């Protein structure tokens, strides 16, 4: 396995009151291309914090987090924005779609930040909408969509640039069982087809069924890290 994310001795503390709260404590982790991995643990165990650091939205207090050869925390604002724009897709619990944009425009947004011909862009967007089965909704606005559809738009938006890594923080938390399975199947399929690394933060049983690897976090430390042997759920 070729590691694209390598985390060594990662510590993250937050100032609280006069002291510090240690949200991540000496985390060591290596993730490779094409993984479908979940950070699992109770509330407050540091899942989101770890995802944020991998996504270069936050920086390590100590230790090293290398993502695609970039050392998080040592990047300039521009470099880290470029990393997020090109190589990392984000999926949020509450979808975070831009409300004034149509589905098409939401998916288009990350591509507009890149230099890309209108033609290539259009193809990429239609393909991404096809992956999530929303080609017929391209002109809808987020307010006109169901929760499941919104999350599928978010997946299309994360995937449209064909990033190496997708970070999904509780993607199913606002969805019912049927929609949860639907989006996970979609993501699993994309993982297989495009070899995109998916990293989840979750405590949802439904998500766990699909994971190929589970990293258990407890009080900011990696408690267990296991590879799951399971039949391919993607059919």
């Amino acid at each position: 396995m070729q590691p694209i994310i390598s985390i060594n001795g990662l510590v993250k503390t937050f100032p609280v009151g006069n002291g510090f709260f240690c949200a991540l404590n000496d985390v060591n982790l290596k993730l490779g291309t094409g993984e479908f991995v979940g950070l699992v643990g109770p509330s407050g165990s540091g899942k989101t914090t770890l995802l944020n650091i991998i996504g270069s939205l936050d920086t390590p207090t100590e230790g090293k987090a290398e993502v695609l050869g970039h050392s998080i925390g040592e990047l300039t604002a521009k470099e880290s924005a470029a990393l997020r724009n090109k190589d990392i897709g984000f999926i949020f619990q509450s979808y975070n779609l831009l409300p004034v944009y149509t589905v098409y425009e939401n998916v288009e947004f990350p591509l507009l930040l890149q230099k890309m011909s209108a033609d290539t862009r259009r193809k990429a967007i239609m393909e991404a909408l096809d992956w999530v089965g929303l080609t017929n909704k391209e002109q809808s606005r987020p307010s006109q969509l169901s929760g499941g559809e919104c999350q599928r738009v978010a997946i299309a938006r994360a995937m449209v640039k064909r990033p190496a890594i997708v970070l999904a923080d509780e993607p199913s938390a606002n969805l019912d069982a049927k929609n949860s399975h639907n989006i996970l199947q979609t993501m699993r399929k994309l993982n297989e087809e495009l070899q995109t690394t998916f990293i989840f933060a979750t405590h949802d049983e439904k998500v766990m069924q699909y994971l190929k690897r589970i990293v258990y976090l407890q009080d900011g430390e990696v408690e267990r890290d296991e590879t799951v042997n399971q039949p391919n759920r993607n059919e």
Partner: protein
Amino acid sequence: MLLLRTAFKNILGGGKRTWLNVTVLSFTFVIMVAYNGILDGFLEEARRETQRWETGAGQIQHPEYDRYDMFTLQDAHGVAPLSLQTYLADKSMTPILILQAAIYPQGRFQNILLKGIDAGQNILELPTAKLRHTGTEIPVIIGQRMAGLADLKEGDRVMLRWRDKQGVFDAQEIVIAAVFKTKTTTVDAGQMWINITDLYAMTGMQDEATYLVKSENCPVVSDIDNWSYKDLKYLLADIDLMAKSNQTESFIIFAILLAIALLAVFDTQMLSIFRRQKEIGTYVALGMTPKRVSGLFTLEGTSYSILAVLMAAVWGTPLLYLFAQTGMKMPEVYADMGMGMSDAIYPAYHVSSIMTSIIVIVVLSAIISYLPARRIAKQNIVFALKGKIN
């Protein structure tokens, strides 16, 4: 480009609040243009009228003459320098001889300025042809204000008393040959215009003048033999001074209007940065630098003013056009300010002054939008994504 597109999308998606801001700004903008137009129109008219009725293209004044000091009049007259005689001969200059005199309308005594002017001059608008006469009766022309003050009308006769060159009083009845209508008070109130030839005869001040008014095609632009050349800048100084004081006044009005309009924009900015935390976080997650997001919000705030200008163009253009046709009635007080007065003022819109208004509104709204937006660049993005503000 992306930022601009996004900014417009966002504010157009902003609903009522956007339109409120845009409307208030566009209102301010139109008022600003209309008010500036009125000021410019008023001043330009005053300048134009004063030139046509009083100053011509410039004046050459007797060394003793001071237009602000009536007492200088007694000595401020003489024969114009020799080198100017050609211009006087070809009428590209015309002499004005001023005397203090008195009239007795209905037995009342009233001081006036008696101004002698060539009946054949064609530099000033004054209807001096009316001063030509064959009989012994001496005609004068007066303005409407003077007619009102002295209760005189065309055809009326009134006793005139003046001093001749030796200082000896003399008196004679004169007849009002015409009452003219002018917007320039300074050739009207308290004065009578008389044929300069008559005045020469009445005073013995043959060929003398207090000052010479020159026409456009008279090339004299400097002092000659102690007679001082006065250009329009000097002669219209009162109007320019008034323009300046009006500018200050209008500046204060706009400062207040603009402050109100900009406060609305500022408030919206503060609110939207507070409310749209998650969106801000999302932009950053999608690959914008926080600086760029703060630029986006600044641009959004600025776009209000751009939309406002467009909106103002839509409803303001016909309105301002109409305003330019109908003009505006000026309050009487302006009539006594010693300068051009019109019954109605017609606004003059200048591209430069409209552009200035646009730039002022756009730049100020950019600044006012930037102030709250710059916080975004310093903000903790993780908090923003959670929808919390720090």
